[in-house]
C-alpha cells in the first residue's frame, strides 16, 4: 500500500510570510494527525482528525495556525504569518482509528525554515 504522502519536503520562507503543507493519508485511514517535531525532540501533536472532524486541536496555536480536512481524506496545515519559532519538521500521520491500539504511519515530513 502507498504510504502517507506529504509535500513539500522542504520549505524556506521569511518571517511573516504564509506557508501551507499538504498531506494525503493511507487509503482507508480515518484518523489523521499533524505533529510538529523540533530538533532533538519527540513529535508534539498539533491536531487530530476523525474523518473530517477535528476532535483534538487543543495544542494548535489558533492565532496563526489553521488546518482543514475536507471530505475526510487529504489535509492542509497552514501558518499565517510564520514566526522564527515555527522552524521545525511538520509530520503528518494516519491510522485506522484511535491511537490506543492502532499504529501511526508517518509521512516523511516537511522541514520548515523561517528566516
Amino acid at each position: 500500500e502507498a504510504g502517507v504522502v506529504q509535500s513539500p519536503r522542504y520549505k524556506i520562507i521569511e518571517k511573516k510570510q504564509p506557508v501551507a503543507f499538504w498531506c494525503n493519508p493511507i487509503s482507508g485511514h480515518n484518523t489523521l494527525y499533524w505533529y510538529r517535531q523540533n530538533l532533538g525532540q519527540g513529535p508534539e501533536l498539533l491536531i487530530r482528525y476523525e474523518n473530517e472532524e477535528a476532535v483534538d486541536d487543543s495544542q494548535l496555536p489558533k492565532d496563526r495556525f489553521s488546518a482543514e480536512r475536507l471530505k475526510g481524506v487529504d489535509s492542509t496545515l497552514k501558518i499565517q504569518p510564520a514566526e522564527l519559532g515555527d522552524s521545525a519538521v511538520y509530520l503528518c500521520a494516519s491510522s485506522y482509528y484511535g491511537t490506543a491500539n492502532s499504529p501511526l504511519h508517518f509521512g516523511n515530513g516537511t522541514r520548515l525554515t523561517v528566516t
Partner: protein
Amino acid sequence: QQPVQSPQAVILREGEDAVINCSSSKALYSVHWYRQKHGEAPVFLMILLKGGEQKGHDKISASFNEKKQQSSLYLTASQLSYSGTYFCGTDTGTASKLTFGTGTRLQVTL
C-alpha cells in the same frame, strides 16, 4: 505530560544488548514504540496494551508494567540497522492522544 525516557543516548557495539525505558506520571492504557532514523519519518515498532503483556518481533521486544506506569524496549544482539532515535508514545486512554517521549538516541558501531 511528556513521558521520560532513559537513557538519553547509548552507544553499542554490534551484537550487544540494550534496554530503553519509558516512564509516565499518569496511568497508561497503551504504549507505542517508534524508531526514527536521521532525516526520516518515525517507523512503528510495536504497541503494548494495558495488561502487562510482552511483545516482540525478531530481536526487539518490549514489556509494559501498568502498575509502575513504565515500559521497556529490549534490543538483543544489536545490528547496525538498529541505529536511530527511539521514541515511546503513551496513551492514557482518556482522549486517544499519543504523547511522545523525550527520545533515546542509539548508535550501533562495528
